[in-house]
C-alpha cells in the first residue's frame, strides 16, 4: 500500500497535478506529533515515579524505540521509500549493537580489574 502511495504521487505529478514528491494529509503529522508528546510524557513519568530495575530499563527502551520509529517512518518518510534505501540505511546501525556487546564484556573486565587492584588494601 505504501508503494502505491509513492507511485500515485509520481503519476500525479506526471499528469500535471500541482502536487509532487511526498504528499500525505496534515492530519497524519498532527497524530504522530501527538503520539510523540504522549510517549515523551510517559518516559518522563518513568523517572518522576522513580521506577527502578528491569521495569525502568524496559519502559525507557520501549518508549525510545517507539518514538524513534515514528520519527523515521512518518516524519522522515522512510515508510514510503523503496526497500533498497530502507535496508541500506536501517541495517548498518544495527551492527552498532555488536559493538555494544563487545564493549559490555570489555567494561565488565575493566571494572573487575579496578576492583581487584585499586580497592583499599589491595596494594
Amino acid at each position: 500500500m505504501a508503494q502505491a502511495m509513492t507511485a500515485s504521487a509520481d503519476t500525479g505529478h506526471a499528469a500535471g497535478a500541482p502536487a509532487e514528491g511526498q504528499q500525505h494529509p496534515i492530519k497524519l503529522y498532527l497524530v504522530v506529533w501527538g503520539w510523540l508528546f504522549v510517549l515523551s510524557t510517559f518516559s518522563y513519568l518513568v523517572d518522576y515515579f522513580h521506577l527502578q530495575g528491569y521495569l525502568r530499563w524496559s519502559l525507557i527502551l520501549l518508549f525510545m524505540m517507539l518514538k524513534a520509529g515514528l520519527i523515521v517512518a512518518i516524519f522522515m518518510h522512510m515508510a514510503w521509500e523503496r526497500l533498497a534505501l530502507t535496508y541500506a540505511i536501517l541495517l548498518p546501525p544495527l551492527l552498532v549493537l555488536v559493538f555494544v556487546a563487545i564493549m559490555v564484556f570489555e567494561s565488565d573486565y575493566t571494572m573487575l580489574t579496578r576492583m581487584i587492584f585499586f580497592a583499599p588494601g589491595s596494594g
Partner: protein
Amino acid sequence: MEGITQARPTEAISQPQGWHGIVADWSSDQRAFKSASWGKAMMWIFLLSDTFVFGCFLLSYMTVRMSTTEPWPNPSEVFGLEIAGLSVPLLLIAIMTFILISSSGTMAMAVNFAYRRDRKRTTLLMLATAAFGATFVGMQGFEWTKLIMEGVRPWGNPWGAPQFGSAFFMITGFHGTHVTIGVIFLLIIARKVWRGDFDTERRGFFTSRKGRYEVVEITGLYWHFVDLVWVFIFALFYLW
C-alpha cells in the same frame, strides 16, 4: 530533469517489490535508490555516518559508566530544578524534549506545504522550526552554565564518577552543535523559499544550480535526525 528525479508512471507500476525489488534496484544499471533523488539519498547516507558518530559517543558513555568503581551522579537530581521551593526532577530536560518534538512537527508540515508550493506557510513553518531550535540551544546554554557554576568539569564533579562531566559535555555539546547548524540551514532555505527561488528557478549562490522544493524535505531529514538523536540522548543519558 524531472525524468531523472521522478520515476515514469509505467516504470513505477512495473517495479518489482520485496526482496526481488531490492535485488533488482541494486543490480540495475542506473541508480539503486529509485524512490529518492540523489540529493535525498546523499542526505540519508550522511545521516547514516552521523548515526555512527553519535553511536560511538553513546557507546563510550556506556563503557565509562559501566567500568567505573565510583557511583555515577544521579541525573534525575543533577538536572532537577527548584520551582517555588519544590524540586522537580529533569524539568528543564523535559521542556527541551517537548520543544524539539514540536519543532519536528512544524518541520514535517513545512515539507508538506512546500510540495504544494505554498510559499507563505512553508516559510512561516520553517521560521517556527528555527525559533524552536534556537530556544532549545538557549536552554542548553542555561543548563551548561548552571552545571559549570555547580562545579562540573570534563575531569570531575562534586557528586561522583569524574567521567560524568566529559560524557555530558561531549554528547550534549555535539548535539547542540548539530541543532545550531540546523537552525542556520533552516534560515537559509526559508529565505530561498520566501524569495521564490524554486518557482523562478533562480540559481544557487554556491552551486549555481537550480533548486527545487525537494530541498525543504532534505532540510527536514536533517532536522528530524537532530530530534531523533535527542530521543536517544534523553533515554540513555538523562533517564538511565
